[in-house]
């Protein structure tokens, strides 16, 4: 019996088994750049709207490669058209009036690239968009890898009704804004005169507002839903991260809801899938995104991007000090860690900022980052309170 038990123990012995995910660098020779990209998603909203024209760029150290000197126009089904003007390289704008943008009418894009190649899109119709009945949030706990690895936060929802047969598909663009506070502390500045003095309040920006366009794509088709139902659409989870402070003071989500046709929905849906992390056992075949814009002389030329016309509606929701969340600050944020007083520094490195800190029982100057005394330096924020705040 003992022998059998020993064998059993040996049997289940395994040194290790683990899958492995490691960085992969594609061969430079495999890369192909320079494909024309036309991003033209226009709405029925009067005012300035833009079309971006660029070329695809390398995977390694990429940056936008705008196409300057192109010609772009929107043609309505009745022959009316609007010519765009280039405001900056690759950025073409037009100030639309209400009359040109009519729900139910179809529009097409016509572009002439600087090399003389002409491109046009399929016609796309402006479809009606449902009104957003309400926007609200709920506190929830999101689990990640394990039960113990979870976090609290809020999730925003909007409600609308599928009550028009002309509603086909929808897409949402989200923008978040939140209030951010620097810790309350006495700050000092070592100025170019090499003297340390208290930082005046007028220079100490402690309250800022951070606004981000959220890159995640949200889209939905109403095709398989029952007509007339009340739809509750959820958006991404906002984590109550103590360092980020998104929910500490006040958080706002701005939602723009666009109507789409089926082709445009398919495009955004596939674009979303290509940008989502993959890599599990059942890897999906990536889609080669088909544009509805093509070279009128060369059907084989691949064009990236899409042209769509949408109806649009919008709303904004707020989450101010949500109940049930631990809204304490991250205590180590902007804590001075380098002991002063300052040693020899170059004038070029000035000014530097300090706070008072206790070091070995002694009150000393300790260096802090600039964004700790000027929140405008943090994540492209601004100290100007938005008018909707």
């Amino acid at each position, binding site marked *: 019996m003992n022998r059998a038990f020993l064998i059993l123990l040996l*049997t289940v*012995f395994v040194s290790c088994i683990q*899958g492995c*995910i490691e960085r992969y660098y594609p061969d430079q020779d495999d890369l192909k750049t320079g494909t024309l990209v036309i991003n033209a998603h226009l709405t029925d909203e009067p005012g300035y709207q833009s079309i971006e024209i660029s070329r695809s760029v390398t995977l390694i150290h990429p940056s936008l490669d705008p196409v300057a000197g192109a010609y772009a126009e929107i043609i309505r089904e009745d022959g009316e058209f609007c010519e765009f003007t280039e405001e900056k390289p690759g950025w073409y704008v037009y100030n639309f009036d209400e009359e040109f943008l009519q729900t139910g009418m179809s529009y097409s894009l016509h572009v002439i690239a600087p090399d003389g190649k002409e491109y046009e899109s399929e016609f796309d119709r402006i479809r009606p968009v449902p009104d957003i009945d309400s926007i609200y949030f709920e506190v929830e706990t999101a689990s990640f*890898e394990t039960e113990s690895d979870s976090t609290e936060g809020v999730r925003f929802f909007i409600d609308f009704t599928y009550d028009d047969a002309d509603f086909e598909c929808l897409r949402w663009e989200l923008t978040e804004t939140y209030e951010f506070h620097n810790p309350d502390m006495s700050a000092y500045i070592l100025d170019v005169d090499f003297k340390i003095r208290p930082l005046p309040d007028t220079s100490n920006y402690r309250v800022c507002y951070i606004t981000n366009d959220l890159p995640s794509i949200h889209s939905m088709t109403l095709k398989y839903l029952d007509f007339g139902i009340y739809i509750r659409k959820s958006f991404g989870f906002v984590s109550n991260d103590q360092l980020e402070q998104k929910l500490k003071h006040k958080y706002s989500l701005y939602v723009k809801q666009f109507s789409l046709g089926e082709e445009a929905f398919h495009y955004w849906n596939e674009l979303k899938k290509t*940008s989502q992390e993959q890599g599990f056992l059942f890897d999906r*075949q990536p889609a080669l995104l088909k544009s509805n814009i093509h070279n009128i002389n060369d059907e084989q030329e691949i064009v990236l991007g899409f042209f769509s016309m949408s109806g649009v509606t919008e709303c904004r929701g707020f989450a101010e000090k949500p109940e049930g969340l631990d809204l304490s600050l991250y205590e180590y944020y902007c804590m001075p860690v380098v002991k002063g007083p300052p040693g020899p520094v170059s004038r070029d490195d000035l000014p530097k900022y300090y706070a008072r800190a206790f070091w070995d029982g002694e009150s000393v100057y300790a260096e802090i980052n600039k964004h700790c005394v000027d929140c405008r330096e943090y994540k492209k924020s601004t100290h100007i309170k938005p008018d909707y705040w």
Partner: protein
Amino acid sequence: MKIHKLLWVFFLFFSLVSMAQENGERVNILISDGDFDNFVQQIESQSGLHIYYNAEWFSGRTFSYSEDSVDVEEAIYDVLNGTGLHFNRLGPKRLIILPQKRLNMQLPLMAVSMGSYQADKMGDEYLGVKDDLFLTGTRPEQISRTIEVGKRGTSLTRGVARVKGKLLNLETGEPVMGATMVDLGSGKGSVSDQNGNVTMALKPGTHAMRFSFIGMENVNVTMEVFSDGDFRVEMHPAVIALDEVQILGEQYRDINTTDMGVERFSMNSLKQVPVFMGERDVIKISRLLPGITSAGEASVGVNVRGGNVDQNIFYINRLPVYNTSHLFGFFSAFSSDIIRDFSIYKGSVPVNYGGRLSSVFNILTRKGNNKSFTAHAGISPVSANVTVEGPVKKDHSSFLLSGRSSYSDWILNQMEDPLIRDSDAFFYDFAGSLNFQPNTKNVFNVFYYQSYDKFRYSKLSDYEYANGGVSVSWEKYISPALTSKLTGTSSFYDFANTDQSEISRAYTHEYMLNHNEVLAEIQWVPNMNHKVDFGSSLIFYRLDRGSVEPYGEASIRNSVNLGKEQALEGAVFISDNVDLTDWLSLYAGIRYSLYTMLGPQTVMLYEEGKPKSENTIVDSLECGKSESVSSNSGPEFRTAINMKAGPNTSFKLSFNQMRQYLFMLSNTVTISPTDQWKLADYHIDPQSSYQLTGGFYHIFSRLGLSSSVELYYKYSKDIVEYKDGADFITSPLTETVVLQGLQNAYGAEFMLQKTLGRLDGWISYTLSRSEMLVSGDNEFESINNGNPYPSNFDRPHVLNVVANYTINRRFSVGSNLVYMSGRPVTYPTSLYYINNVAYIDYYARNQFRIPDYFRIDLSLNIEGNLKADKFMHSTWSLNVYNLLGRNNPQSIYFVPNEYFIKGYAFSVIGAPIFTMSWNVKLGNYESH
């Protein structure tokens, strides 16, 4: 010294270049038109043997013989062949040559108790003699014995007798399938079927016959044929005999038959091959053969000669199994403990098989020991199994029960991927068999099989699936020339899946497939040059694709009923295996299959020239219950020619046509547990393929090496491919998301196999390509802009080396070396910006490849002691999978963010895996 020996062993272990030397009574003989005395002199002077014979019998005869290092008994056997004389061993150093077939010494008790060869008359009565092993010493397979077939004095009007043999495992009474019976005089042969039956037409007279099968000792007999008749040969499982030569019938099968692209193995012969996690797995072993690949460790099924996974059918005792995997594809759903042998048809497929374009995997289980009760059990790091078998009525009926179950999902907890680590898994499979042979004319078999899997992928998905069914067969031996078999099967495959990866779209889905089949097969041997197989089959498919229902309160998904489908697939088939001359044989067959999809069904009709979508529906057809929705039929020609260029060499050509009426809905690179089988319908045509194969086969008999080169070209049409972003659960209208195209696959398969001596194994290399083309009249009917692209499983170079070395009866080592070109993958080639966010541009489908795959495995197998009198015998197996710890990526993926993109390679196994498994059986080392 021991270390030195071990190093030597490992050196041999990794290299097939150096072959082990055989130690036996070997002599060099060179006689050119010499007399027999000269022949004997040469033997006696080199071996120390004394050969007794009457010189008068050889008077006037001359002999020519030239062989180096030939086994003495083999040389004598060859020289005496056709003389009517036979030799018998009198002791370790004495041989006697007599006209009698055997030396008749009266030691009845021993003769009876050790009998190993028996021969029947037309009925149950034995015609032949009981074996007398006391004469043969320890080498019975080298001695020729006599089997008499038919009735003496019978005159045959047609000039040939039809002899039908039953080849049985001496120890278990189970039939031996795939064994060859070769008439050494004419070189003609035949292969035993799954019930061990082998049929040949022979001229009356004396024939030197050899029976061979991998894992069994060869049996050489002198067959005296008087008329039509039966015989029985019991083959002894090969006890690893280090000094002896095993010439395996499998090699000669390649030379003597018209089979091409056919692989056959008995599980016994694969005991030493290293395995993953201690689980011996026929499907994983099959991936070591030429032309058979997979997507990686965790992948379901196989890709055969560039075909999709759904182009293969897996039978276990003729019961079709639609999902052959356990645990994400890490293991197969077949417990190796019950498998007797398996065959893979990937080139020329016999006419009694159909329904898939690429291959047929035919797995046969053991029938159960009909002589005594026995049990086997085993435990591996993943699962435990137990098998019980024994006679219901000794020698007439037997049963076998086998079960296997996982007992832990710890393997998942070791994974680095947090989602897998947070997952649970469980599986089991069960098989039961009842075999009943009331008399020599009838055999009945009932087989039941079920497998079940359940796993939870983190908190995102729950999967549950099961295969199962029953097969009942009745085999009737109408006459030595005519055998019939009737098989009825009923199998099912179902799955249930809950997906919560997106709360608002969470759903649950259940799916069910039923396959009910009746198959009648008849084999007729009208004369010595023909073997005719004919029959018919009828399959009734019933699919319930299920409803996709919203799951959870937050889900706003609408319920979608994917619908039910049913269809009939019938086939009639006939083939003839014709020996046109001594060197030319022909297999000519035709299978005519008919397919009808049955109502009730609503068929949507779409606007011409527009993509099929809900928006382009213009009308619909209502088909009533049992009304034909769509039908299709066509011939499938199967032909093969074998041209023998000598006893050890042959050239072959074959043409094989197949049709397939159901396919799998899958747009993932590897098959996922939620992929649905779907029937061809009004819009989706059945798939078909045409394969041309040419081959060259040669046996280096003295080295025990067999070699083959097979070239193939396979053209398949109406292969189902999926539109970008295809989703199979949002709409029942499958035709809106699939396209059909052409598949071209071609390649060369090289195989060098060694089955002699301590070192055995094979080296196979495959050079192949597989390409898809989906190019319709309109852009929306094309994939990859209508340009050809490599299929997902196109691997141009595949090298497999399997080397096993037997140190002694207790210790053996094995190794695998696997190299494969990386499979095609669609990579991003550039980035572009939409609303200031970087997105990936996938330029063209499958234009790039993931890194090549390379793996080495090792195993050490240790048998318990060799005591004859013991209650239980243990075997330990130590395995190292992926010895080098190499990361072999299964997939490549890219994650973009606002500014740049990161590429990642995901390897399922990223480290060497050491495992130990333990198997135990009742009895001693030789027990079965």
